[in-house]
């Protein structure tokens, strides 16, 4: 599954949720739910069968990038919430470490995940936010909500900081 497929799905989901006609929206959502439930039941059965024939194979399946995403999506990944989360956090820490920034987990539970971002450069926030969001939602999509502290959203940063205006000016 390429990043394109993923973002296309994200976009289509938003479009379905934005359907103005409540009847049409409800039917579309029900269809998605029904198909997902069908796949969930089928994949679960499949995992059970292959695990019986070849014990330990689910670990290998879970390690595959594409299959991992599909398993996580259906709530069937062999690794639990905490394992998947700490793996994602490790990866993010390495990523930000090399860029002079850091993240810290303030609260980690299935209901809410609160992360603090500390960066050296101001203005690097928006990209960092999307990087964190993508990594977390990919690893633990079941998390109730994700709250990232230390990065103003575009909405909050509605004013243009003077520093960023001056940055382009020759000294």
């Amino acid at each position, binding site marked *: 599954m390429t990043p394109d497929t993923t973002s296309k799905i994200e976009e289509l989901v938003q479009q379905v949720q934005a359907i103005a006609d409540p009847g049409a929206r409800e039917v579309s959502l029900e269809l998605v739910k029904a198909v997902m439930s069908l796949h969930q039941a089928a994949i679960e059965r499949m995992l059970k069968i292959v695990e019986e024939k070849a014990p330990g194979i689910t670990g290998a399946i879970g390690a595959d990038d594409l299959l991992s995403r599909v398993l*996580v999506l259906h709530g069937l990944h062999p690794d639990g919430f905490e394992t998947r989360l700490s793996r994602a956090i490790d990866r993010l820490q390495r990523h930000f470490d090399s860029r002079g920034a850091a993240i810290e987990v303030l609260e980690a539970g299935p209901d809410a995940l609160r992360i603090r971002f500390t960066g050296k450069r101001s203005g690097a926030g928006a990209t960092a936010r999307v990087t964190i969001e993508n990594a977390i939602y990919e690893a633990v999509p079941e998390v109730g909500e*994700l709250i990232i*502290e230390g990065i103003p959203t575009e909405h909050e940063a509605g004013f243009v900081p003077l520093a960023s205006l001056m940055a382009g000016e020759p000294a």
Partner: protein
Amino acid sequence: MIGAPRSPVRGLAALRRIAFPPPARERCELCATDIGDIHEHLVDPEERRLLCACTACAILFDHSAARRFRRVPRDIRRLAGLRIDDALWNSLGIPIGLVFFFRSSVSNTVVAVYPSPGGPAEVAVEQDLWSELAALDPALGALTDDVEALLVNRIRGARSYFLVPIDQCYKLNGVIRSHWSGFTGGDKLWEEMHQFFEALQQRALPERSHADA
């Protein structure tokens, strides 16, 4: 303190949300603090919108200078002594025996809201008629603007009157919207209505007799 906002759901997680939604967490719509199932409500009289709030925000915003929001009270009282005769009732011109009345600070009138096949319908009540109605029970003259309502149930022979916080009226609208079918509402709706009023009765403060009022 303004909390950091929730991040939008990205990628496949968006798909997962549709199929297997996580249990909703109630939070204050003003400061995003977690709040339990039982929490305060504020009403925005201009927008006719109800907001869930933590107690601190409910108090704070109710007392702010602008007073854009009003805190919704909690008490429910059954007006057991109230009798509205059919002649007075009919003169109100409301086509159905289920209606709530509240005084709107925005229009400065008493507004009656009742269900109809096209959703909630509303009419302004003539001042004279409301005065006549209010004279029947002192509680009616003392309704707090925007947040308190007289809820009337005269359906299928019922004659019950409650003084309710406005959020109960929103709740009732929700029940009606989810269960209304056909042109007259359908049996399922009237069963739900019955349960709504039973629950209201249970939550009502002990009745005062008409003589005490």
